[in-house]
């Protein structure tokens, strides 16, 4: 699933490790999320959206 996670993370001046610490996941998970190799659970998606003060749809783009 395509997403704007890397763009939003960099806009907030965070490293992958910083983001991983805040979300309480591993840095590898953040990396996999950013390059679309792993799709987050709904709870993690909500956490990410709230962290960046936006909606899930603004972060993740679902394409059939």
């Amino acid at each position, binding site marked *: 699933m395509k997403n704007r996670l890397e763009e939003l993370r960099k806009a907030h001046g965070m490293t992958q490790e910083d983001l*991983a610490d805040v979300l*309480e*996941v*591993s840095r*590898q*998970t953040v990396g*996999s999320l950013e390059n679309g190799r*792993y799709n*987050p*659970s709904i709870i*993690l998606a909500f956490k990410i959206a709230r962290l960046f003060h936006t909606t899930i749809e603004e972060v993740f783009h679902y394409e059939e």
Partner: protein
Amino acid sequence: MKNKLRLYTALAALFFLLSAAAYLLDKLSAPLPDRWGGLLVGGGVGLGVFFLSKALTERYYVKNQKARRMMEVEDRDERTRTIRGMAAYRALVSGTPIFLSVWLILLFLDVPLAGLLVVCAGYLLNFGVYAYHLVKLQKEM
């Protein structure tokens, strides 16, 4: 955490002592009955090494709290759990041909029926545990 370190160290020492005692008894011409000697020496050393490695790991984490936190985060991480679950399932599925191969090898080695039945029971028990968790998780989720 320090209690865990003490526990693992004590268990490692206990098992090493047990295996050393069994070995000495054997050398002093006071051998233990049949397979007990081998079980105590081999099993004791194996368990001793297992608990020693756990003690060394725990000691590392006591001295390095950052590494412990990273390990705990990694353990709870949803991607890690997903990967572990998928890997475990694939291991279970590939277990059947592996088990059959082992069973056939044992059969050709003329292993007694009791031995073959024990191996079968082990496989069925493993599958039973999988089925139990499958049903339980389907009800919970």
